[in-house]
């Protein structure tokens, strides 16, 4: 290093830019710009070849006010909500259990939870198609037990969609809950018991608040992708259980109406941003654990 070196402050600034620029630019160009384009195209008319026409219009957006869209949007919301609730109900005891079990078992259990995630997403959904098929084993077992009438359809309805959505989202709920539960100091729970709390009381007063950061992460990781579900309702759902994702895909591939798809995607984007902004604001107010790590989430 010669005396012609820039001052250390400047060198530090330069190093920061060198390290930050590649990923920053990439994501700005391939995530921010495309998202902006989605909002822009929502204001354009379609052209007959399935492309984007010239000029601007609000007709596309206005057509979104149709009641059928409202129904679909509502269904998307409440199916995602149910999925999230279902996942959390299952993930909290599971995450707790794995965090409390002997270290030797922990790794194996985590692996068992994660391995299905390593297999193809489509294939897992396909497997449920087979399972829930009218001639399939699950239906046969349930009918034999008398739980469902013999001609019931387990497949191609909202129930099937919900089930499979929970199935595919569950690992994303278990892992953050486990991670938070593993870091928790359990002497706090014991202290609560010592001070007179019942097991359930200790659970709600100490354990749940203690893993709140994990709970929030799990909720986001399940709810937000669920809003955009497309394949699951496509493969195991029916026209009466369509979600926003389906409709967007339809507009793109079947009807070739890109501006329409764009408009719907814009709505979905706003719906996705809302919970994230809420969490961000809560975090800034110190409610959900101050920013401890400088990394994402």
């Amino acid at each position, binding site marked *: 290093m010669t005396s012609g070196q820039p001052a250390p402050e400047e060198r530090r600034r330069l*190093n*920061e830019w060198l*390290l*930050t620029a590649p*990923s*920053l630019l*990439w*994501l*700005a160009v*391939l*995530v*921010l710009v*495309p*998202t902006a*384009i*989605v909002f822009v*195209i929502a204001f354009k008319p379609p052209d007959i070849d399935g492309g984007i026409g010239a000029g601007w219009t609000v007709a596309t957006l206005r057509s979104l006010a149709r009641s059928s869209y409202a129904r679909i949007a509502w269904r998307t919301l409440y199916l995602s909500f149910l999925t999230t609730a279902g996942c959390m109900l*299952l993930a909290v*005891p*599971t995450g*707790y*259990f794995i965090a409390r079990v002997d270290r030797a078992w922990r790794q194996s259990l985590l*692996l*068992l*939870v994660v391995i299905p995630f*390593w*297999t*193809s*997403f489509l*294939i*897992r959904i*396909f*497997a*449920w198609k*087979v*399972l829930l098929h009218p*001639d*399939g*084993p699950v239906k046969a077992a349930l009918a034999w037990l008398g739980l469902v009438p013999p001609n019931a359809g387990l497949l191609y309805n909202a129930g099937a969609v919900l089930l499979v959505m929970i*199935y595919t989202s*569950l690992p994303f709920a*278990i892992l953050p809950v486990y991670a938070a539960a593993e870091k928790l100091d359990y002497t706090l729970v014991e202290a609560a018991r010592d001070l007179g709390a019942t*097991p359930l009381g200790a659970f709600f007063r100490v*354990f749940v608040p203690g893993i709140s950061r994990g709970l929030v992460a799990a909720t986001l990781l399940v709810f*937000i992708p669920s809003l*955009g*579900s*497309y394949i699951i309702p496509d*493969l195991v759902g029916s026209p009466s259980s369509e979600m926003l*994702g389906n409709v*967007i*895909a339809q507009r793109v591939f079947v009807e070739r109406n*890109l501006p329409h798809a764009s408009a719907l*995607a814009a709505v979905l984007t706003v719906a*996705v941003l809302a919970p*994230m902004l809420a969490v961000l604001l809560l975090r800034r107010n110190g409610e959900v654990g101050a920013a401890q790590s*400088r*990394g*994402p*989430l």
Partner: protein
Amino acid sequence: MRRSRFPLLVTVAVLLFFYLPILVLVVNSFNASRFGTTWQGWTLHWYARLTTERDIWDALRLTLEIAFVSTAASVVLGTTAALALHRFSSRVQRFHSALISVPLVMPEILMGISLLLFFAAIGLDLGLLTVILAHVTFSLSYVALVVLGRLEGFDDSLLEAARDLGAGRWYTARRVLLPLLAPGIAAGGLLAFTLSVDDFVITFFVAGPGTTTLPIRIYSMIKHGSPPLINALSTLLLLVTFLAVWLSQRLATRRT
């Protein structure tokens, strides 16, 4: 809470829930029945059929090519991102961090359609390149997340020690930082590879007519019949996955 068996029961139920469909698939891959709903005898017929399906092997080869290229790029971008986020804490990094989080929570369909529109807007034809660009975009954040996790536990005094002993920044990075970070980078790369191989929705949106990856082929197989072949293919993929996981576990434990 120590006495309650409830968490244990739920965990067991969850694990059964996870593996039930997979079990069905594996069993059915040996099932002579066309539809797999009833058992009709043991056969390896579907596996044999698989070996003759050229479409599937072409799709697999293409998928792997895409995976290797996109993994390489996303590892580089993700690692530099993680290093930047770890080392610096300026306002730029806060924006950077937020930006990195976006692909992690963005629904795939949004990413798919936005990239489709983007490529249309800049006049880039859909094909191999657009798929690779898309794959790098969503993998990058995962790699950054994994590497950042390793960096947070990294003993910075090691880097100071290297500088103290006379090493310049580049030497320190090369001989101290990267060797110790390598397992984390490898883990990130493995994750990126998996995500790329398995991706359907985004790929479906940005792949051109001639770019059929394995997931796309599987999707059309599901929509248009031939379920037994899928069973056999799935079982094979499962086997490969198990092997890969077992291998990475062995590597991980050997390092420690």
